[in-house]
């Protein structure tokens, strides 16, 4: 298993974060200098609040790791609320002076972010190794 494709299903099962009704799986792993959180599924009005709550607690672990990578390569759908949750995470990470990266941004996400005009606010990674 490469660092870019860790098993979200297994990881989320271990974390007890799988929420089938809202089609959102959250996995947790690590990379050099950062904690990696990977999400899969739909990040919409229903799933965004629990996702953000999880991310707030993950930020504490990310402080120890030195940074936070959010791997959204397996996101299939995102609503404006989902993008809003990214901005909220960015704000929280800025408050902690914690580097925050969006990794493997799919087209369905980048197009919404572009329409909302938020692309310039974020830092991006193509892979975890870029951070090394």
């Amino acid at each position, binding site marked *: 298993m490469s660092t870019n494709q860790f098993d979200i299903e297994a990881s989320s099962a271990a974390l007890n974060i799988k929420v089938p009704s809202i089609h959102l799986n959250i996995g947790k792993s690590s990379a050099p200098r950062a904690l990696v959180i990977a999400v899969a599924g739909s990040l919409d009005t229903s799933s965004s609040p629990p996702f953000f709550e999880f991310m707030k607690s993950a930020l504490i672990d990310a402080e120890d790791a030195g940074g936070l990578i959010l791997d959204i390569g397996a996101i299939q759908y995102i609503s404006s609320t989902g993008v809003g949750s990214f901005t909220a995470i960015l704000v929280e990470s800025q408050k902690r002076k914690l580097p925050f990266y969006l990794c493997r941004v799919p087209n369905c996400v980048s197009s919404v972010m572009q329409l909302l005009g*938020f692309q310039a606010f974020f830092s991006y990674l193509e892979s975890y190794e870029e951070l090394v």
Partner: protein
Amino acid sequence: MNPKVAATADEASFALANEEEDEKAYTAAILMIAAMLGAQDGAFIYRDAQEGIRVLTPGRPNDILLTDDQASQLAHSDEASAFLETLGFSFAYTLIIPITGTAMDACFMAFGRDDRLFNKDDSDAVMGFLPRLSSLISARYRLARSERARREAERAYKKNEERLERLFEESHDMIYSVDNDDAIVSINSAGLALLGLRENSEAIGKGFSSFVFTGTDRAGLLKKAASQGYVDDYEIILKKASGEPIFCIESAYCFRDESGKNSEILGFIKDISERIAQERELWKANMELTATNCKLKEAEVLMVQHEKLASIGQLAAGVAHEINNPLSFLMSNHSVFTQFAQTIRSAWEAILASSPSAVEGIKDRFDIAYVLSEMDTMLAETNDGLTRIMAIVRNLKSFAREEMETVIAPYDINKGIENTLIVARNEIKYVADVELRLGALPEIEASAGEINQVLLNLLVNSAQAIEGQKRKDRGHILIVTKGVGDRAVCEISDDGPGVPDELRHRIFDPFFTTKGPGKGTGLGLSISYDLIVKKHKGSLSVERSPLGGALFRIELPFLHPATDVAGGQDCAKDA
């Protein structure tokens, strides 16, 4: 009398179902009974399918429909007779027979004639018809009610259809339906307006996906609708004919045919662009506010640091002055005393060489050899101590900028690193290997002596931190230079123990040190900070190194802001 209807009750058709036919049947019955009685006219008062009270008089062209109040007057035969007269049913003799046992109230038969009274035989004859007639009326009434219910249902259905049509057309939100291939079957005016279309024909038959900004989003909605039969509040970005995106929220319902296959999707779409725009502004403002707050906090930390440095600078200048004078004569006396000690040693050795027997007793009694040996050691230690005090005072003076003369000139930072490494070689060579990744950089405007002093500080710190780990392997120090915007950046990182997070904000504080006693004064980094930040308008920061230890980053502007430096120097003079 109408001869066509002069027949028996059996001849009357009772198999009629609708109101018009009911009327015919009732008319036939009245005429038949009237003929039997020799009456000139007959009337049938009954509740019809509309549940109105009708007065059916076959001899008159128009039926009379009574109000409920009028109908209530027919509760008694006397009143019924008087009432019938008001309707023109006026004869010398009237026979009124209430028809009981039906499902209706207010049901009468009335007959009139002028030539003779009605007698009991007449009423008995009519009564003989009643059982059959009442069952007929009941059956008719039930049928009529059923017919009425059907008509009412039809009316309600039609009304509902009109309402739905009105809702569809007048809704401010887009309503549409698509077939199983996602081709648009219907779309309302709001939908056309939302998509920037003028005619239905511009949408009907076209794939809905052609009006969606991101095709995969539509696929997601269809998949969800197919699996659970509906979709609630699904955010989707539609595309106007002009290409302009529209943020919308959609609820859709899936209709299935008899075989359970999806046959149609009915969707309701609301334009939420305005709400999204407001949210976007809010999020944006929040992000910008946080960024500004972070900058403010950083500025506050810098200001506090500057303030500390200024205070410490004043203190340092005072302390340096106070210590420097006694230290000068201590050093001078120590130097002279060392020479005197050497003179005494030489004299003693001369005496010992010329007449050893004369001083034999003194030598042993005073243990001269031991005293001379210890004196050397003590003088050396004193010298070391005084030298360290001098170094501290020099650092204090440097901190207070009383000593160093700043000469701003073109400075090659890569060359500066190489020169500093030569100076620091002894500190580093036994503990770590140095890796250089020096980028091509133009010369900057800086004070070479001061920048080199900072570089030396950082390199020696790295080496000492690695050495302090008591590790078996050699450490790794990485020096990277590069240009970023209008600044030259130099990063010195190591794989040593690093700087604990809780100490990171204190590391540039004067007199703060993690080194053991005698190893550091705690001024090195604060002086470095002062030189880089205040004198050169650059920045000096520390963070976790990818190598595992600490990473110190120096950023210096390529062009030295001379006027600011002058200001800084003035401040230093004040201090």
